[in-house]
């Protein structure tokens, strides 16, 4: 094995009583792409934060290029040649690319000299790594893929030899992700070391040389990527065998439950987010809406569920119109059998400071069954919550625990349990497994299929293409506020990826 670019020896880190990293040993050879996978909360980000100087380890050593170093601040990390590309970009949106790149490395009070230097350096990096980007473009006008490229350039400009990428593909289309992987390979060929943190097994298989698996704060295994399988990695991550593909029977679509025609929605700034969208969802089928985040799916969901006003268009629920352009009360829609699992469970679907039982009735709190005059019938509320907890295996099974203290997966189960238990005719689901661990994903997927098989109409929006493909009976692809194509569940990822990027193959062929 080549010399290690990074070697971690016995790293420990606790936050109060929480042992986030325990006795981590890891060696990353120079000039390789090393993947680190693990579920949410496994300690990946903590470990990388220690490496980048956001936290200091309680004990243990860090060796960079064979030399023991102390990394106390991000500046130390940069001086040792470690660069980091964050999941949420650290860019000043209204600055140009160049201004962002010299930010923090300005050098002197007047900027003209450092800008000129940065410009020539940027040209060299472009040439060497194929990282083209217009240095004078304003960041907020660039697509997400290019913004990420600026983050990479920022790290390289500071002389990074070791590049850490934290969940880099979460915001990218499959094509953009592939492009990123090409860049990473090129960086590797130039002798750089890349650390890729992700929870997507496919990416690990596609691009890494070695992979390390974290579970509950521990490093449970390191494998050569060529010698392992997706199944093995999933099992290592979760600690038990996982069903990766959902098993489901043939859909038996019935009558049209939800019908959307020529919907147009603008956001609060007046920008058109949804335009000319029409589709039907039938009883007993799951219709998936695929698309890169920010292409109007969120607005579509909010409008159909009565939270946001439409500019024009009609939505029919069970053949009767919903007043989407006027004042719609989400409570009325609930009474009419439309349940909604919102994309943002932290701010919309749940009130985190509430105790679990209070969230178990959110939106259904004015149903007579939970009321005694003006008072909430606490006994019945807690009984309903306990019932949901039992049926959906929500852990810990305590209806009086503050909702914020549940894990992401269990919080999502609280929302799903509440919405599904009301026996709705139509279920609208946004990002059902965002930030949810693998074990809970399996459970949630099974539940959604079960709802379909009970004859419910399910509208599913997700940015996880795998999820859309494995659950949906029909797939609609949204791009720039429009539905640009409909495909069956057997559509290939490449085909959907092109649609998601706004390229219709038929159009492209013409």
């Amino acid at each position, binding site marked *: 094995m080549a010399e290690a670019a990074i070697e971690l020896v016995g790293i420990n880190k606790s*936050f*109060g009583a929480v042992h986030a990293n325990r006795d981590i040993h890891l060696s990353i050879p120079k000039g390789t792409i090393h993947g680190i996978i693990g579920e949410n909360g496994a300690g*990946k980000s903590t470990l990388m934060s220690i490496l980048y100087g956001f936290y200091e380890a309680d004990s243990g050593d860090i060796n960079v290029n064979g030399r023991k170093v102390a990394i106390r601040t991000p500046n130390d990390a940069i001086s040792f040649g470690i660069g980091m590309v964050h999941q949420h970009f650290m860019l000043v949106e209204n600055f140009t690319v160049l201004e962002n790149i010299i930010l923090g490395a300005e050098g002197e009070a007047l900027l003209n000299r450092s800008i000129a230097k940065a410009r020539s350096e940027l040209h060299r990096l472009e040439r060497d790594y194929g990282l083209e980007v217009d240095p004078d473009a304003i960041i907020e006008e660039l697509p997400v893929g290019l913004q990420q490229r600026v983050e990479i350039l920022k790290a390289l400009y500071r002389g990074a030899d070791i590049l850490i990428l934290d969940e880099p593909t979460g915001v990218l289309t499959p094509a953009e992700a592939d492009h990123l992987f090409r860049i990473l390979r090129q960086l590797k060929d130039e002798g750089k070391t890349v650390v890729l943190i992700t929870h997507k097994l496919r990416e690990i298989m596609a691009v890494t040389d070695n992979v390390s698996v974290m579970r509950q704060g521990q490093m449970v295994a390191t494998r050569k990527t060529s010698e392992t399988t997706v199944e093995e990695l999933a099992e290592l991550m979760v600690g038990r065998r996982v069903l990766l593909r959902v098993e489901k029977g043939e859909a038996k679509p019935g009558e049209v439950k939800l019908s959307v025609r020529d919907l147009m929605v603008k956001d609060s700034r007046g920008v058109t987010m949804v335009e000319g969208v029409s589709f039907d969802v039938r009883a007993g089928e799951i219709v998936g809406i695929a698309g890169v985040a920010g292409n109007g799916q969120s607005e579509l969901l909010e409008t159909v569920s009565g939270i946001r006003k439409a500019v024009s268009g009609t939505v029919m629920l069970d053949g009767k119109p919903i007043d989407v352009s006027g004042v719609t009360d*989400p409570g*009325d829609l609930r009474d009419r059998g439309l349940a909604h699992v*919102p994309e943002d469970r932290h701010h919309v679907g749940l009130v985190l400071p509430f105790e679990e039982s209070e969230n178990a009735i959110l939106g259904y709190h004015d149903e007579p069954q939970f009321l005694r005059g003006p008072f*909430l019938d606490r006994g019945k509320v807690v009984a309903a919550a306990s019932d949901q907890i039992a049926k959906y295996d929500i852990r810990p099974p305590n209806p009086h625990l503050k909702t914020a203290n549940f894990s992401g997966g269990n919080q999502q189960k609280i929302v799903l349990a509440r919405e599904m238990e009301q026996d709705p005719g139509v279920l609208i689901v946004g990002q059902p497994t965002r930030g949810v661990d693998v074990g809970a994903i399996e459970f949630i997927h099974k539940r959604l299929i079960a709802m379909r098989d009970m004859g419910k109409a399910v509208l599913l929006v997700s940015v996880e293409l795998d999820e859309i493909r494995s659950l949906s009976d029909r797939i609609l692809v949204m791009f720039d506020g429009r539905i640009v194509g409909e495909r069956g569940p057997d559509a290939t990822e490449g085909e959907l990826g092109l649609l998601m990027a706004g390229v219709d193959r038929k159009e492209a062929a013409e």
Partner: protein
Amino acid sequence: MSTPYAKLPAWADYGLIPLINLCVAFLVAGLVVLLVGENPLRAAGLMIEGAFGRGQYIGYTLYYATSFMFTGLAVAVAFHCGLFNIGGEGQAYIGGLGVAIACLTFDSIFPWWINFPLAILGAAAIGAFWAFIPAILQAKRGSHIVITTIMFNFIAASTMVYLLVDVLKPLGSMAPQTRTFLPDAHLPKLNWVIELFGGTVRSSPFNISFLLALLMAFLVWVLIWRTKLGYEIRTQGHSPKAARYAGISEAKIIIITMMISGALAGMMALNPIMGDQHRVQIDFVTGAGFVGIAVALMGRSHPAGIVPAAILFGALYQGGANLAFEMPNISRDMIVIIQGLVILFAGALEHMLRPQVQALFASFSPRSVGLPAAKTGGA
């Protein structure tokens, strides 16, 4: 990792931390006393003596506390809905008009136990009305409630001056105040309660509106934590988006909450007017509306915290008067400084010492912070 520190048990969260903050505030206040050239320990002794030293002093302490309870509850109810009602001062002041109307009209007709409920209704209705206007401006037009309620304090003050000088003042009187109410519009005193516990009270304004304040504290608790309306108020306060999702009308809930808040603030007027002065005078609120903000902050917007916080501020008021009397170097403004420090440490810097306390708890017993020792941190 989003929350590097573990949670605290409730008693530490609601009891220990405010207590520590209070001690820090007093410590800094002691330094100020030292700067003025007086002995802070003696000053503290004088204040405690002045607040609780004699039955009569206790009566005054509880009299002030009564006013602060009403205004503190008013601020707290609005807090639960995510609204910052700074207008308690004005709502209380204009609430005095409701008391005046009830008392001046009926004091020759009904006995006190009928006049009292009528005055409660009058004070609450006018206080609620005074909060209704900023509320509807917030709900329908988005005018910020902090700005509008501050402005309504000034409008209330000007209106009351006009009414007291030009409308309510009896003919031939020189003082801008209403006539004195007849005895049937005076509230019974509660001094006998203090005497029951062995104190001797020569005279104090401590009256039964104290019991009304306690009843309101209980009703606020019932409202916020036991009713559907309270559930909706809390949902709106924690997350307006979740409230929208749950089908709760934002405009409706803002207006109702502000009217309840205004009604509670308005009831404060009962205490000085019917309980003590038996007439409406200029500026009878004397800052109680603003003290209510400190009381609500200190009491964590919970009635069980607001009652002791109001008594604490009542003691500061009464003890401060004694201090200013005994130590000429220290003026009554010293109390304002201490109040300011309490607001600063209990409100604005509430979380300053929290990490240290949490670390202390975590190191002594991980279980007490609600986490099994082996659980991992967030990614």
